[in-house]
């Protein structure tokens, strides 16, 4: 996941801005770690040392728009959410300029045009804080390790995938083959025993089989179904293990180590 980074300093006050070169023609702008318009707003408010309950809307709006312009000047697609927030800010700014109409009975409290935004910022800020807490907990947990494999783990052929995983997996394979099936021509089809024999010999040779890759090789729906059945058959009778390192990850069929 090594990203080639090219740091380019911006004259945007103290924002740590950098351009990350993802590939030769794909650039991404990182400015601080702004995760969205609320995040950027919080940053600007803090930089202005403004009180969140009394946001200087005019100033913050200008700064916010300056940031968007900067992104655009570098031909960086500005996410829709940033634009929506810009519109909101401009609207609040203009409402702040309107003279406050005196209320007739003096009872009704006139809501500050900033109130809704402030509430959102405050709520968002809490979750941002909670995210930092989770980050530090995860850091500590990463230094704690569970026990290594022991024998009793090995004789357990069962997998703890959910139906969702399997459904999804099979769906993927079928989807991938839809196109090929359209062009399918009649040809000598393999039998189940041929398929099992073929798979076994490949398994013996390579010690393991990536099922996703193998399914992808299948030329027809018929072969695909045969391959799927063969896997289930092999799992049932041979000492092999099905390994899936992550949910939705590839499933690997691996020869179990022979008892000495």
């Amino acid at each position, binding site marked *: 996941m090594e990203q080639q980074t090219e740091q380019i300093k911006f004259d945007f006050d103290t924002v740590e801005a950098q351009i990350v070169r993802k590939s030769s023609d794909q650039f991404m702008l990182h400015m601080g770690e702004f995760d969205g318009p609320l995040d950027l707003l919080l940053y600007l408010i*803090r930089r202005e040392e403004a009180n969140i309950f009394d946001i200087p809307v005019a100033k913050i709006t200008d700064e916010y728009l300056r940031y968007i312009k900067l992104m655009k000047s570098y031909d960086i697609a500005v996410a829709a959410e940033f634009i929506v927030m810009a519109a909101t800010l401009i609207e609040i700014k203009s409402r702040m300029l309107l003279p406050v109409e005196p209320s007739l009975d003096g009872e009704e409290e006139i809501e500050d045009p900033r109130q809704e935004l402030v509430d959102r910022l405050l709520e*968002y800020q809490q979750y*941002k*804080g909670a995210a930092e*807490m*989770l980050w530090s907990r995860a850091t500590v947990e990463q230094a704690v390790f569970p026990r290594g494999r*022991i024998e009793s783990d090995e004789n357990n052929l069962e997998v703890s995938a959910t139906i969702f995983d399997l459904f999804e997996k099979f769906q993927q394979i079928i989807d991938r083959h839809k196109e090929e099936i359209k062009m399918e021509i009649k040809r000598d089809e393999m039998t189940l025993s041929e398929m099992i024999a073929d798979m076994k010999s490949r398994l013996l040779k390579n010690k393991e089989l990536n099922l996703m890759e193998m399914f992808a090789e299948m030329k027809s729906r018929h072969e695909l179904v045969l391959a799927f059945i063969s896997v289930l058959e092999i799992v049932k009778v041979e000492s092999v293990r099905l390994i899936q390192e992550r949910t939705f990850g590839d499933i690997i069929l691996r020869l179990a180590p022979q008892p000495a």
Partner: protein
Amino acid sequence: MTEAAAKTEEVRRSIGELVAVIEALVYVSDEPLAVRALIQILQEDKDTIEAALEKLSAEYDERESGLQLREIGGGWQIATRTEHHEEIRELLKAQPSAKLSLASLETLSVIAYKQPVTVPEIMDIRGVQSASSIKTLLDKRLITSKGRKETVGRPMQYGTSRDFLIQFGLKDLSELPSVEDFEDLVQ
């Protein structure tokens, strides 16, 4: 305990024996072992089992073992202590696993505190599209679906999983600090 008292007991396990067999069972289990499972296998009552677990855990601490017995994700587990992570990584040739991005962590914190919560609700709080974070969190099994919300379109609701508790070192959700505590941290 007098000899007579000891004799009235059936071939019950002594507390020492109980601690030993619990240690063996927690060790063998490949997931945090629930007290419920221990009660069922050992046919002892909950208080006795819990007392034995506390005793065992204290023993690990007292002798400054390289291991610890801890409660996590609704069960008990033996795990290494943080102090030795460098040596362990060297042995396992393991890199620290990729951290979640800040965006995913934010999404996760919203889900953890607001569960069950739908995708649009998460988007409202974060102010950004969170679909790809949610996909990442599902892939890592940190979140799981929690039924549908009885509203227009019956959207899927999400909540945290047992793996979430385990990966973040939590006994249960009540161990999460209150979200209000974070109010002024970021200011």
